[in-house]
């Protein structure tokens, strides 16, 4: 059965109105015969047939307007049986040519990345980078305008310094510098500092650490800062005059050691957010907090409690080349522990010269609360702890 | 000065004074504009009409307020002759908010819908189809009005010129085509741009009654315009005037005039339409001694007033930048 359809007589013809049929069912038609007259937007046009056969059914009435491609009649080919079935409906069949296969490159349909409600607004580049760095995008704190960009992801991953300085909490570096300046000026002006130093043999600590780290899987390996922080925290618990806040002439010793960790920021500036209740954390927990803190300092997203809750501070965790340092106390704290770099030097042990790994630790204390004897006791305590790293 | 035989012009003393005043207003106004351009008060392109004043002034005498005018980018003269207030035209040149087009158009695009002044069109030939359409609307609405379309001889090379003439003639539309043939399409002399240098010939080839007129003679222009508009109003379809004229100044302010000689310009300046007319009018007693000075004084006051107005007028605020892109009520798409 052949379908006789409303033809397209031009690209701008979308429909036509049947004026009349020139043949009736049962008539023989042959290719080229005019079998209908159709009125178009332009004029009435005679429509020819392109097949031989017997006109079977007329599906469109004169006066009826139908879209291009509508089957208007069926034509029986020689050999076809008369159609006894239901008449097909006058509906447009595929009138338009099959969609051409585009030879032009089509961008692959990308998975929709429209954030579901409540999901973070992360840029495509940030999402890709997060996958590369193994960062869960939901765990990344958004930056300005609530957007997680490349910078936020890299900071969250603690990725190594991208080119641009980040701003902690929206504070500019100028403001940061000013704030540090003001705090340190106040410290220098108001706090009568004293300093007590001691050079400690950290060879046992480093040896233990090396052995420990070969044992641990890579992601769980420790920096020496972790046992150092733990030892300082524990030693401070035994030195209440070095761990607390001095405000308006009154000293409040702290119950826990919220140990401020001085972290240098990219692009300058220094900030000392605290690891809260550090004395209660094991090495793995301290390591995790440390990583998190550094990443968030660089990403500029510290919590305010971390900024104000420090009860004492530890600084210069072996970074750089300074053998020893004389730090200023962060008010309202009353002590700060400055650790120089670890160097290998000759050291006399039991009357013999040995090569030892040494670190000079300096405690700055507030003379209004304590005196040097207190700090010296702290240092002895610390030394003892460091000599038995396995107990930390 | 020769008075045309066909004249129906009633040249009263008042009318003579009015013709002189209208031409002088254009001349002095534009002289001031040239100075203001150099002072950077007026920017963009400034095309002066000086030398051609008899055309706008003569033609306008035959038009009533119900008739329409379509002009070119050299349209200060047409605007003033049509009766647009010099202060509004000057403010437009300054780009001020009180200008006839609120400052949006500048020198080349002066519009005044209430005076049926359909603007300066800066696309050569662009006004002709517009005039045909205005006339078509009049004809379809059975209004007895004329649309007068000014253009230069340069436009005769454009397809739009020929298409418009054909349409107007075919549909017998009430259009008065006024070709101000000043011999130069910008810097191209008519002999270098037209195969037929009598432009009226083209009109005749479309079956349009056409005349060649001395465009330096305001009375001749007025006579021709009256005759043509009478015929148009009588239902005769379009008419065409080719006014032979000359611009005394450069095409625009930034034009070295390498394409014509100074002596040619000087030769034409001897036919200065204002000088010729005032001499003739004085000689024939139409213009009393001292009358021109009075007129000049009045014009200078008007121009000073216009400049003062333009100086003081406000700029349109930048916040209104997107206004008048669509009719406000239509709430057209904004990006």
């Amino acid at each position, binding site marked *: 059965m052949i379908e006789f359809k409303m033809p397209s007589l031009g690209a701008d013809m979308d429909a036509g109105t049947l004026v009349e049929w020139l043949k009736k069912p049962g008539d023989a038609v042959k290719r080229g015969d005019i079998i209908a007259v159709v009125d178009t937007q332009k004029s009435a046009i005679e429509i020819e047939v392109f097949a031989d056969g017997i006109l079977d059914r007329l599906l469109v009435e004169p006066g009826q307007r139908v879209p291009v491609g509508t089957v208007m009649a069926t034509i029986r080919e020689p050999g076809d049986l008369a159609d006894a079935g239901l008449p097909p409906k006058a509906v447009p069949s595929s009138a338009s040519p099959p969609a051409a296969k585009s030879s032009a490159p089509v961008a692959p349909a990308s998975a929709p990345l429209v954030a579901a409600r409540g999901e973070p607004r992360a*840029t495509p580049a940030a*999402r890709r980078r997060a996958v590369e760095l193994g960062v869960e995008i939901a765990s990344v704190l958004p930056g300005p305008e609530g957007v997680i960009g490349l910078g936020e992801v890299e900071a969250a991953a603690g990725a190594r310094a991208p080119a641009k300085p980040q701003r902690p909490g929206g504070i500019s570096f100028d403001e940061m510098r000013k704030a540090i300046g003001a705090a340190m000026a106040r410290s220098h002006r108001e706090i009568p500092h004293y300093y007590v130093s001691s050079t400690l043999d950290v060879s046992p600590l480093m040896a233990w650490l090396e052995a420990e780290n070969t044992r641990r899987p890579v992601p769980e390996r420790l920096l020496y800062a972790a046992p150092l922080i733990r030892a300082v925290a524990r030693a401070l618990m035994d030195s209440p005059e070095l761990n607390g806040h001095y405000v308006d002439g009154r000293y409040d010793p702290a119950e826990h050691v919220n140990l401020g960790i001085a972290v240098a920021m990219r692009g300058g500036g220094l900030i000392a957010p605290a690891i809260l209740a550090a004395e209660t954390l094991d090495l793995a927990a301290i390591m995790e907090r440390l990583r998190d803190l550094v990443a968030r300092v660089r990403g500029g997203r510290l919590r305010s409690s971390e900024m104000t809750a420090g009860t004492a501070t530890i600084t210069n965790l072996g970074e750089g080349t300074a053998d020893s340092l004389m730090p200023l106390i962060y008010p309202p704290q009353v002590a700060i522990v400055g650790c120089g770099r670890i160097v290998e030097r000759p050291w006399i042990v039991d009357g013999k010269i040995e090569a030892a790994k040494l670190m000079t630790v300096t405690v700055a204390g507030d003379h209004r609360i304590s005196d040097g004897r207190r700090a010296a006791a702290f240092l002895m305590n610390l030394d003892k702890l460091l000599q038995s790293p396995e107990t930390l | 000065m020769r008075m045309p035989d066909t004249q129906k012009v009633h040249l009263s003393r008042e009318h003579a004074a009015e013709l002189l005043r209208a031409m002088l207003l254009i001349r002095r106004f534009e002289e001031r504009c040239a100075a203001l351009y150099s002072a950077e008060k007026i920017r963009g392109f400034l095309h002066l009409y000086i030398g051609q004043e008899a055309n706008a002034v003569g033609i306008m005498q035959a038009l009533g307020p119900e008739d329409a005018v379509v002009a070119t980018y050299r349209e200060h003269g047409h605007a003033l002759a049509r009766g647009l207030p010099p202060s509004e035209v000057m403010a437009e040149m300054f780009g001020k908010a009180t200008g006839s087009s609120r400052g949006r158009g500048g020198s080349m695009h002066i519009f005044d819908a209430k005076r049926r002044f359909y603007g300066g069109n800066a696309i050569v030939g662009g006004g002709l189809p517009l005039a045909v359409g205005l006339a078509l609307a009049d004809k379809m609405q059975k209004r007895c009005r004329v649309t007068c379309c000014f253009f230069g001889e340069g436009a005769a090379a454009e397809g739009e010129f020929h298409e418009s003439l054909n349409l107007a003639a075919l549909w017998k539309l009430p259009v008065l085509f006024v070709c101000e043939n000043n011999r130069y399409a910008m810097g*191209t002399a008519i002999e270098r741009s037209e195969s037929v240098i009598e432009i009226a010939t083209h009109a005749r080839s479309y079956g349009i009654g056409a005349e060649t007129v001395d465009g330096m003679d305001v009375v001749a222009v007025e006579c021709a315009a009256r005759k043509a508009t009478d015929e148009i109003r009588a239902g005769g379809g379009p008419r065409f005037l080719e006014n032979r004229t000359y611009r005394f100044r450069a095409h625009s302010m930034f034009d070295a005039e390498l394409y014509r000689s100074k002596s040619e310009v000087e030769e034409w300046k001897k036919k200065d339409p204002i000088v010729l007319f005032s001499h003739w009018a004085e000689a024939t007693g139409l213009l009393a001694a001292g009358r021109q000075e009075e007129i000049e004084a009045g014009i200078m006051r008007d121009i000073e007033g216009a400049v003062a107005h333009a100086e003081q007028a406000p700029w349109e605020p930048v916040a209104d930048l997107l206004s008048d892109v669509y009719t406000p009520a239509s709430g057209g798409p904004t990006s």
Partner: protein
Amino acid sequence: MTGGRKITYREAVREALREALTRDERVFLMGEDVGRYGGAYACSMGLLAEFGEERVRDTPLSESGFVGAGIGAALGGMRPIVEIMTVNFSLLALDQIVNNAATLRHMSGGQLSVPLVIRMATGAGRQLAAQHSHSLECWYAHVPGLKVVAPATVADARGMLWTALCDPDPVVIFEHAALYNDESEVAAGGDLAVDIASAAVRRQGTDATLVTYGGSLKKSLAAAEVLAKDGISCEVVDLRSLRPLDDRTIMASVAKTHRAIVVDEGWRTGSLAAEIGTRTMEQAFFDLDAPVGRVCSAEVPIPYPKHLETAATPQVDGIVAAVRGALRR
């Protein structure tokens, strides 16, 4: 390079025209006021005297006619350079350009070739109001069969014409009218022809990519300079060719900077900026750390007064703001 010398963009165009007329007998220049007047922008000053009326042809004001004649002459073996005074006037010839120049090769099944070069001025900035100021490059860049270039530098104004003339297909050259007085160093001699298919990185940077062309290049470079003072490093890509677009250069830059801002004097809707933004989304989506920004002309015919014209078109301040927006700082 055989030693530099300073010439203006206008002189560069004139030199290129002179070189073309000298090198190839088939080359001729035609357009409104190109002869006696010396060109509306004085680009062809002196060429009539040098090459004569046959080869430097003043045309009547009949854009459709003389552009179409250029197409015919190209079919007939000549190498015409047709100058159209401004892009607004070119609309009178749009039929010939789009329906003939761009289609003849295809319609004839590859039998015909239209080696035609059309030059025209474009752009705002001179208070010429709404019939002389538009940037319609995008309209031409829409049309398959045309090549569209926008020399933004003196060297490109000097070097693109010959390459365009050597091209077997129609090439439309857009010269932003605000550039004609720009001065810059070009080589004294030798072959100055440059390619007409690639984009050029005019300034290296790491934080954001400014994609631009024509008259907006200067503004983009100025904006990059302003931003550099704040430690923001912009890469500036000069498209040079508007059709075809050099996707590779654009995407390479975006992969580096992760942020793209398109500066385009055309109207925003349906603009080249829209096209570039879409391509960037298609080809560099996962490199993007911010939505692609656009600095385009406001959706209004260009108004006459200076302050409104300035407000309607891309300016340095707007570009700077768009970059900051993309960087979220």
